């Protein structure tokens, strides 16, 4: 049983006109076995939350804490956080020319596990993970994300999720830009991951569409850098019907 705990998190970025606050006191607790959906309008700070948890240097934490099993994640480097059990599926996965997917996956797996995977089972694991995400086996010979379509990049992220099998996964708009078939493939992958029973997911999304395939235990509405409302899956249904306007009006009037 593990816990990812975010307390009163404040984050800013440097801009030309000085520091700009984006997160204004985020509180969120995710236990293993739970799937939390974070929904919100564009610009509400959802992606900033994802990157801040993962440790992207662009985002400065000014106060608050993020801990995984009581350990302070904010004190850790980006790679230490990953080795502690955190995974971020990115909205825009980065191309790394000249580094093959096979080499990348093996290096990452070795780093996460602290030892090299056994060659015989590993090759099979990679092939299986690729097949499940409906990625051709030739992908492992290609450079990481280079020349991949938008959908292929997202599916490759979920293949990594399955192979690295972290304690907690933050999925940053993994559903955006996917056609319905790809959305189903990606959702199946996430459901296999959560189906293990002891994994936590923070699913960040703009649309309710993916929630037809991935059932969240909790839904949080994110507005202007903090959680405006939380509830169960029924909250997502209400958002689908009403949109975010109500929160934006309330927030503006506050």
């Amino acid at each position: 049983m593990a816990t990812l705990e975010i307390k009163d998190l404040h984050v800013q970025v440097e801009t030309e006109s000085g520091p700009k606050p984006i997160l204004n006191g985020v509180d969120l607790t995710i236990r293993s076995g739970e799937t939390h959906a974070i929904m919100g309008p564009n610009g509400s700070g959802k992606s900033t939350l994802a990157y801040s948890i993962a440790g992207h240097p662009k985002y400065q934490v000014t106060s608050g804490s993020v801990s995984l099993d009581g350990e302070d994640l904010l004190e850790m480097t980006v790679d230490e956080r990953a080795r502690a059990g955190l995974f971020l599926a990115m909205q825009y996965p980065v191309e790394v020319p000249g580094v093959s997917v096979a080499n990348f996956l093996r290096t990452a797996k070795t780093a996460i596990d602290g030892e090299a995977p056994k060659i015989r089972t590993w090759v099979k694991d990679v092939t299986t993970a690729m097949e499940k995400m409906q990625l051709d086996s030739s992908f492992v010979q290609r450079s990481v994300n280079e020349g991949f379509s938008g959908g292929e990049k997202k599916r490759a992220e979920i293949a990594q999720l399955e192979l690295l099998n972290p304690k907690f996964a933050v999925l940053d708009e993994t559903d955006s830009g996917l056609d319905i078939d790809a959305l189903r493939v990606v959702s199946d992958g996430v459901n296999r991951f959560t189906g293990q029973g002891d994994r936590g997911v923070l699913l960040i999304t703009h649309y309710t569409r993916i929630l037809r395939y991935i059932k969240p235990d909790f839904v949080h509405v994110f507005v202007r850098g903090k959680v405006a409302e939380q509830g169960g899956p029924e909250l997502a249904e209400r958002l689908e019907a009403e949109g975010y306007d109500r929160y934006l009006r309330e927030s503006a009037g506050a």
Partner: protein
Amino acid sequence: MTTTDTSTDRRPDGTDPERGVADIGPGATADSPPAGEPGGAVAGAIETSTTVASHLHPGGSFEVDDHPVPTGREEVWRFTPVKRLRPMFEPVPTDDLAVEHEVSVPHGVVQGVLAPGQAPRGTVLVPADRPAAIASAQAGEALHLQVPAEHVATEPIRITVTGRGADRRSNAHYVVEAGAHSEATVVLHHQGSAQHNANLEVVVGDGARLTVISVQDWDADALHTGQHEARVGRDASYQHIAVSFGGDVVRLQSNVSYAGPGGRAELLGLYFVDGGQHIEHRLFVDHNTPKSESNVDYRGALQGAGAHAVWIGDVLIRKAAEGIDTYESNRNLVLTDGCRADSVPNLEIETGEIAGAGHASTTGRFDDEQLFYLRSRGIDETEARRLVVHGFFADIIRRIGVDEVEELLLAAVERELEITVGVPAAPTA
């Protein structure tokens, strides 16, 4: 735009001849100024005749005296530390102890010598600068390697040049002739230390496929100048790969012209410049026939104070060269402060009736987003940097196709990386 000013490399007012510099990429740092200079757009056409070839490359000469000792202010010398290279401007004979040549020739390839003036020596290569003229004049007998027509050499031709003293001068000339429809690979490997001044003259016969790999694996105090000049036959393929790691000052020219339509040239380069080192590659592709192709791709990494890389990529598209296709690219990866990369692509175009012409140059540091992505998967910073640098060179290394050279390269990249990026993590099974 018209200029006939080809008598000097530099105009009286000190400006450069017009030159086109485009697609200069982002990320140049204060220590690595963006390539090129302010100036005109893509160079305009000039009137051509047999005597006025290119203002970038005023005709060469075999006469040493036609090439004055450079001051460093000339266009073709302005990036070069001429003081450090001074011994190479002296027309002195070869010190017999300077270098050892070891030549290994696979079955079917004929090895011989060519006296000065004995064809095909001197039919392709006309010295473009003073060291090349000295090498030509002082070399005596030239090594001559002939691949007979239609012969396919299964093993590379190997020429290993081992320097025996940084104060010893060698002048050499090598001639490689690939007969029509033959296939061969030449590996020219330089090691040890010397003042090595050598020309390589290459005749690629019609339909032949020839690869030349020149590896500069010198000790830290070597000086190396040279002109590699190839003429590519009708429908022939020529690949020249320069790999420069060692040496104090290395200044190599890799030039190509065509003997008929349909020839292809691929000029690749990979270099790693350490503190205090000067590594200079100068390319000139003379598209003098229709339907010829050229592709230039040079990549280098720089680290340490005073590391200086120079890349000059000149392409001339003559009036006759209709339907040609050319692209040249130079990328520099700056690993530390205090490095300098000069990168100057030039296109000189005399006909618009072409399939394509382009160039690109980028100089930058590590891509933070790439590092973040790799590290977000648990890979530590050192390992992430190693992956990115390997990836940066991988495209070039992959295209070499000679196992021993690929291995040598990977080992050399590894060795260089240890200096700034760190030693590898515990070996993985």
